[in-house]
């Protein structure tokens, strides 16, 4: 079982969490303007990376907050945990990337709020 470091509650067993799949897939701003191929690309096509992989988890049984995890899909090692909207921490061997515009405006409480 994975031990996941919830950015709000700390280390908890995987059984308390639910999985949200690949992270950083932005919903198209104007779905109606997309071609079928672009829509399929958004809805169905996935990176499914072998190795370092950015994914979403929610602490369902605990604080019920979504957050991102950078995990290796070959070893299950968790490299980093970061809040929604926070800059992406680099994967091992990867240069730090400057955060682009955050996907969604985060509520004030998440920015300054409690937790570690």
């Amino acid at each position, binding site marked *: *079982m*994975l031990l996941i470091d919830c950015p709000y509650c700390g280390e908890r*067993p*995987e*059984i308390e969490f*639910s*999985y949200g*799949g*690949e992270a950083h897939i932005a919903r198209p701003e104007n779905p109606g303007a997309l071609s*079928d*191929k672009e*829509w*399929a*690309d958004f*809805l*169905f*096509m*996935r*990176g*499914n*990376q*072998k190795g370092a*992989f950015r*994914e979403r988890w929610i602490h369902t049984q605990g604080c019920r907050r979504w957050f991102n995890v950078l*995990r290796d*899909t*070959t*070893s*299950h090692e968790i490299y980093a945990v970061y809040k929604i909207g926070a800059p992406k921490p680099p994967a091992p061997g990867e240069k730090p990337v400057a955060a682009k515009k955050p996907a969604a405006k985060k509520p004030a409480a998440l920015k300054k709020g409690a937790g570690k």
Partner: protein
Amino acid sequence: MLEKGWIGGGNTGRNTTIVRSNYLFDESAHLYEKSLQLFEQLSQELNYNVMMSQRGVMNLAHNLHDVRESKRRVFANKLNGVDAEWLEPEEVKAFCPIIDISPDARYPVMGATLQKRAGVARHDAVAWGFARGADARGVDIIQNCEVTGLRIDNGRIVGVETTKGFIGAKKVGSVAAGHTSVICGMAGFRVPLTSHPLQALVSEPIKPIHPCVVMSNAVHVYVSQSDKGELVIGAGIDAYNSYAQRGSFHIIEGQMGALRELFPIFSRLRMMRSWGGIVDTTPDASCIMSKTPVENFFINCGWGTGGFKATPGSGWAFAYTIAKGEPHPLNAAFTLDRFTTGALVDEHGAAGVAH
């Protein structure tokens, strides 16, 4: 035939060996039925005992919705020429005496579908039977040879890079299950697949007690007894993406709870081994056997938790697709562009429990 590990070291050698063809939709029923018919002849055809045992597969119904859905599936199967029966609880008990059909069970058995021609086949025998058959027909099987790149010239495949060097080829087919995204990544396109662990386990061997295959979508159990006497039990997929061929323990724990719920008689059994495969799941729980954006490069994948039963049919239709450059009518619905057109073949119901 290039294999990065050993023949049968992928999901083929890790599955729970269930073979059946009672899928809901026409497209799937035809493909899996073709496969089952090939399975029925396979030992003769390959001159190799694949230990095909048509002991019957029962899908239990535990509530009224299950009953309605199951009957619908029986009717759909019959219309497609697939053998299917509906059993009332007493008939379920007669077919598999260890099932508790008392109405006060936590998940009462309200009936079941039965496909009598379905059953199990020995998974590694299938792998080795095919390997011998292919070898006898002149196929080179190269193990410990990993494909590390695809050489593409002007949108057309011309060969593969491997750990043993470059191999030129006019046509290339990829059947890499959980690693398909990696292979397609080499060609620069994405596929609608996610790779997950799927775990299974076997108990200590016991005397013959379980005469058929029992599956329950609601309780999530699929269990049979191998010829060695072990109970063979499959779990559901782990939620997270993984290429590790192992999953989390609570999945196994939950699986044991489900098994015990349905078969209190197994509560004292010790489990001997557990393992995991990397299954390639698709959004509609159906396979992909298709041309790709790269000319003469074909993929056969997305079998997820249930492609062992398809092995002969899948090979048959894929061979046709590669030879002709176009899919056979049997796999015409399972192309990559169904995710663009929206013509999905949603078999989540009949794929139900993960197998």
